[in-house]
């Protein structure tokens, strides 16, 4: 893979003495991956600016607005963290599955099912209204995880047993989950014909920072809720699972080389199903956390595509559970600020460009471009 930087003259007298040489890297220097990722985001933002400019917007104002509206003061940063909370959980969900090369792009549907599960236990009165907050939240969490896990089990089982491509099935299940939730919201528990149920009892709400405003007045109005703690704990747990547990070792082995895993006696069928369930459960927790921490009832359109953003977050974090947290905060800010930006597609457009830049830039990790003296080789 060499390409001359300039066409050599046929007579050989005047010759550009350098050539660009693209070589495979055997080893990437430390920190290069981070630098390349940051560079990719930078270039993506520039490209996004260009597109905004072309369609007649003012990109710098838009970006300035995003920065202020997401990180400008404690209040908005708290809102950013609220947006980051479900992103952390779905980002982890995607990371776990992708680590085993299972393309779970159904985190969106699993998120909805988690929300549905945690709402059902309240709406059906399975948890009495008088129940204490820890019990209520515990049951909701469990129900959310179970529903999410079930929604991951279906494509996992189909993939493991019948070799059905999980990309399409998880995606189809997103549409099905959303229609399913809509059925319950409109057809079963609609509050006066609106697209939402009645508000849940306080015991079903996650504690918020503002709940502590009596002791610390500075926290007044801050919406960050307990789900964030859950997300951070989950990222530590997933890290430990992947890098310090026997099961995590099996996941990494299957992800890198399924044949070798089989050869090492790893049960791939069982692991496929289990990993999809864990992934679904994490996304389900995200749905539960959104119900308990933000909307406090079941309603339609609870996710502006968190499940899909989770894919980008997982990729940007290089599937590292710890890195998922800061990346989610960044994207939380983008989504928060993006709500106010017109036209509505901008955040999605920028996410798309970022993902493109990211995967395109990975070539820099695998190859290095060197300028070499042609003469020196003779």
């Amino acid at each position, binding site marked *: *893979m060499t390409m001359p930087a300039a066409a050599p003259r046929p007579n050989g007298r005047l010759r550009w003495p350098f050539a660009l040489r693209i070589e495979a890297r055997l080893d990437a220097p430390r920190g290069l991956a981070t630098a390349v990722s940051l560079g990719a985001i930078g270039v993506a933002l520039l490209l996004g600016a260009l*597109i905004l400019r072309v*369609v007649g917007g003012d990109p710098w104002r838009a970006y300035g607005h995003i920065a202020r509206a997401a990180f400008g003061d404690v209040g908005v940063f708290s809102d950013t963290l609220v947006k980051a909370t479900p992103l952390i959980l779905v980002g982890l969900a995607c990371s776990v599955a992708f680590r085993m090369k299972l*393309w779970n*792009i159904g985190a969106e549907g699993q998120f909805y099912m988690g929300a549905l599960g945690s709402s059902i236990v309240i709406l059906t009165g399975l948890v009495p209204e008088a129940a204490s907050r820890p019990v209520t939240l515990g049951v909701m969490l469990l129900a959310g995880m179970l529903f999410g896990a079930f929604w991951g089990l279906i494509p996992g089982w*189909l993939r493991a047993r*019948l*070799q*059905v*491509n999980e*990309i*399409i*099935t998880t*995606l*189809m*299940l997103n*549409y*099905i989950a959303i*229609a*399913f939730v*809509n*059925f319950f919201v*409109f*057809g*079963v528990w609609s509050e006066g014909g609106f697209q939402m149920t009645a508000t849940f009892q306080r015991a079903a709400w996650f504690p918020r920072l503002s709940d502590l405003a009596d002791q610390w007045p500075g926290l007044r109005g801050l919406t960050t809720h307990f789900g964030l703690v859950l997300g951070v704990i989950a990222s530590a747990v997933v890290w430990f699972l992947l890098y310090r547990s026997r099961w995590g070792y099996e996941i990494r082995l299957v992800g890198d080389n399924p044949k070798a895993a089989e050869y090492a006696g790893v049960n791939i069928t069982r692991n496929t199903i289990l990993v999809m369930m864990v992934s679904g459960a994490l996304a389900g927790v995200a749905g539960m956390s959104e119900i308990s921490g933000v909307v406090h009832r079941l309603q339609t359109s609870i996710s502006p595509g968190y499940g*899909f953003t989770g*894919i*980008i977050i997982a*990729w940007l974090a290089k599937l590292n559970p710890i890195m998922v947290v800061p990346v989610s905060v960044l994207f939380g800010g983008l989504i928060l600020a993006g709500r106010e930006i*017109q*036209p*509505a*597609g*901008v*955040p*999605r*457009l*920028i*996410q*798309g*460009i970022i*993902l*493109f830049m990211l*995967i*395109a830039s*990975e*070539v820099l990790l*695998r190859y290095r471009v060197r300028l070499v003296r042609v003469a020196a080789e003779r």
Partner: protein
Amino acid sequence: MDPIVILHAGVASGTVLLFATIGEILAERSGVLNLGVEGMMLIGAMSAFSVTASTGNGGWGLLVAMLAAGMLALLHGLVTIHLQADQVVSGLALTFLGVGLSLVLGEGLNKAGAISLLPVVTIPLISAIPVLGPIFFTHHSVMVYVGYLLVPAVWFYIHRTRQGLDLRAVGENPTAADAMGLNVQWLRYVHVWVGGLLAGLAGGTISLAISPGWFSELTTSGQGWIAIGLVIFAQWDPFRAALGSYAFGALRRTILDIQGPQTLFTLRNPFFYNPYLGFFLQMLPYAFTIGVLILGSRAAQRRHLGAPAALGLPYVRGERGH
């Protein structure tokens, strides 16, 4: 609930899936999985509607739709063929980009365009054939007839031409194809591009003919993904793709029609009395896609058929064995 009406409508709306599915078949036959069909279709639908609305010419609309979607496909080609990025992730990125871009560019477009912006044609003589005539040759958009021609043409291209042979070779064994002097990258670019053109055509067909207008994401409502599922069901064969597409079209129409009558097969129609059950009907195309995938993969296993062997793998020349 007239079967002729349902099948007629099935052929019409199935044409959208047909274009997208055949486009994806061509891309995948060359070894490139392009999951960005939904994004490409949406950009096609948006640009076709927007151009037609301002020029009044559906032909220009379709052309721009195809070129716009083709551009996106080339981007996928660049990233996966040249930069060897993961095809799955790149396809997802393309979906985001296509959807985002069409929402941004389609902002403020006049939403509804009640009538078809492309000519509607009844073929003389053969439309008089009983059953088949009214289903296939009566009062259809020209795009439906384009679909009829496309299916055998693509089959012929794949199996009976030198270019088709090259295409199949590149998708099965790019190393061998390269060694025999085929330009693997070029062939992949061309077919990924053509796949994009057809996805754009599919999108344009929606917004100009099948359900005219621009309804943001709901314009395609996941049909791009269904098309990818159909490719597996079709086992990369255009005729099976046609079968699957038209069947899906008919299913969509059935779902719409089933909520109309008060009785269904002499029984009380639950969908009439409880409109909320309609949400379950909405799930059907997606549930059927899963079903079709299961059938497709079972058949592939039984007949030892399968995807093009090199599907999803970047081709790097001169990689040394050991």
